[in-house]
């Protein structure tokens, strides 16, 4: 199935707009797209009429333009008829917002639209979903724009079975400065499921990393998903809910008792190089890290800090996440000693973590980053930047990004406050380097690279 017209429509029809109720989901969708997005949007209601002076088309076939995407927000029982009209009129695909299908026990109704769509090669998202959010292009979420926290345009695609969770994850992305390429709530995923989304994003040049919020897979759907991940070739991150404990007493084999649904899920995800997040913060942190550094590391971390305490905390956190913080060889320590300014030579420590102390300057951090980038015993640097140290300026982010561009070793920066040190942070983020706002997040970013495998 070709999903291009569905995800990148030039024209959109919103079917089911109300002539009297402005907060009807279809009206919210129609209004926000008409007022804020470049997509051409047309309202449809069987009764015809006008909304604020704009003509409402009684049927999709009455619209003078060819429609790429239909938003179906009618009552569930008329969705089959509406979809048939869409197919008839050559529409490119649909988002079925309406609920009242398998989730409410109406499995037959859902099966009817699925078989119609399959037969007509007509892709649709949902039913029972928010649909598609495409930054600066269109938005089928029936949530008034001012109620959403909208992230910037970026390279992370998000797919979710739950619309509400997706909206929250987008808010977290906005908070962390992670931009998204597309966000899709697939709802009941009656036709288009996670596997179709993986295949779509494989071909999407605007997407580098794909995240999924999953509730469950259908029969053998997990297998198909796992096998589609290596083909996709881009980092995939999942967050799973419904981790029901295994081992009902009726089970009589040890294997069936130990290998419960979640244990199997988690093991197979890791087997196929999927990075599993344990909460909503991790999913965003992992996405930020892997969208900057799409690579696998062994997990030997070099830490550079301006405070001993931060270095010790970071070391502990690395170790508890299965990362190593190897002690540097004598020769490497000597190189570091020689590279820093005379003022700190006697007070800094050059093992691992490298503690440059509160007397350090930008030059010392750059010199240490350069030395560690060439140290073969590590494959990632965590840089604990404390911008309140007097010798550190807001230029350090951009300077360190040059070290990364020149040397190629991933650098993960920790900066304690987003607003206050924004210019420092942008020195990294505008140069496609991740910035963490807690020591633990910085370690999670390294962990994402250790767990990611391109199969």
């Amino acid at each position, binding site marked *: 199935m070709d999903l291009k017209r569905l995800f990148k429509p030039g024209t959109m029809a919103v079917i089911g707009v109300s002539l009297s109720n402005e907060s009807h989901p279809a009206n919210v969708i129609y209004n926000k797209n008409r007022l804020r997005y470049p997509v051409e949007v047309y309202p449809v209601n069987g009764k015809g009429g006008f909304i604020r002076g704009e003509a409402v088309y009684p049927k999709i076939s009455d619209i003078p333009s060819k429609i790429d995407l239909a938003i179906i927000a009618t009552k569930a029982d008329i969705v089959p008829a509406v979809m048939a009209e869409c197919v008839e009129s050559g529409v490119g695909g649909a988002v079925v917002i309406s609920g009242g299908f398998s989730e409410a026990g109406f499995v037959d109704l859902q099966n009817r639209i699925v078989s119609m769509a399959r037969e007509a090669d007509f892709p649709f998202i949902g039913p029972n979903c928010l649909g598609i959010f495409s930054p600066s292009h269109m938005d089928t979420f029936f949530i008034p724009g001012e109620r959403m926290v909208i992230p910037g345009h970026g390279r992370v695609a998000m797919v979710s079975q739950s619309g509400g969770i997706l909206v929250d994850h987008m808010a977290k992305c906005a908070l962390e400065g992670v931009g998204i390429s597309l966000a899709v709530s697939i709802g009941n995923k009656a036709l288009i499921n996670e596997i179709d989304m993986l295949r779509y994003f494989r071909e999407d040049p605007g997407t580098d990393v794909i995240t999924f919020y999953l509730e*469950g*897979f*259908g*029969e*053998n*759907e*997990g*297998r198909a998903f*796992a096998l589609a991940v290596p083909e996709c070739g881009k980092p995939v991150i999942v967050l799973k809910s419904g981790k029901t404990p295994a*081992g009902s007493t009726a089970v*009589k*084999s*040890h*294997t*069936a*008792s*130990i*290998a419960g*649904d979640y*244990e*199997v*899920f988690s*093991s*197979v995800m890791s*087997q*196929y190089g999927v990075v599993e997040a344990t909460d909503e913060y991790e999913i965003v942190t992992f996405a930020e890290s892997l969208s900057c550094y799409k690579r696998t590391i062994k997990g030997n971390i070099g830490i550079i800090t301006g405070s001993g305490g931060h270095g010790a905390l970071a070391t502990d956190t690395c170790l508890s996440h299965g990362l190593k913080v190897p002690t540097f060889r004598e020769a490497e320590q000597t190189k570091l000693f020689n590279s820093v300014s005379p003022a700190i030579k006697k007070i800094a420590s050059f093992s691992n973590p490298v503690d440059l102390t509160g007397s350090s300057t930008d030059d010392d951090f750059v010199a240490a980053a350069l030395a560690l980038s060439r140290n073969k015993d590590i494959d990632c640097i965590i840089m604990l930047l404390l911008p309140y140290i007097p010798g550190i300026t807001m230029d350090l982010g951009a300077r360190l990004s040059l070290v990364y561009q020149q040397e190629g070793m991933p650098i993960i920066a920790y900066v304690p406050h987003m607003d206050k040190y924004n210019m420092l942070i942008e020195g990294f983020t505008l140069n496609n380097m991740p910035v963490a706002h807690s020591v633990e997040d910085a370690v999670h970013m390294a962990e994402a690279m250790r767990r990611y495998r391109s199969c």
Partner: protein
Amino acid sequence: MLKEEILGLLAEASPRGWLMEPQAKHILRLSGLDVTRFLWTESVQEATRFAAEIGYPVVVKVVSPEVIHKSDVSGVVLGISGDKQLGEAFEQMRAIRGFQGIIVEETVRGTELIAGMKMDLQFGPVIMLGIGGTAVEIYKDVAIRMAPLRGQDVESMLASLKAHPFLEGYRGAEPISIESLTKMLLAFSSLVMEFEGKVGSIDLNPVICNATRCIITDARIMLAGS
């Protein structure tokens, strides 16, 4: 394709929902897996003759369609060193409900592992490897992978076990033959790929591994839907 004989054994077990040890081991042997040398008999004379042939010490286990977990009913006696003790074990087994004879088999020494398969609704056949024996559900030191296993999967399964230093020869102990274990797991993986819709889960527990071989000493096959 599964051999006719294997399909026959599965069909025969269908009313009960699971295969007793002799049949389960027979299927595994037909599929090229290494299982212990054993005799299934209801005669104590045959049992002693077989014990003499394979040499003491031997293991005696009950065969009963009513007993899935043999050790729960004292249905396993290890280290039987002579005819008299074998006779006593036979009597002990005969008292167990549903008695259909005993298994007499060779004693194999080494590290006890468990290998198993579960037909997962979402992922199809998955394979588990772990530290075995009766305490497996307490320690749960296991690795799970989707079948069919690739070479790299077997390596990562072994590496992910907490007890993997034991397998490599911890503190002077003999390391196990990783080659035999890998061969066994790959053969098991090919077999279970044929079991879709037929088998629900399998325990090979224990699989005893030493420096030269990995051998299945007990097996349980639960049919699909049981």
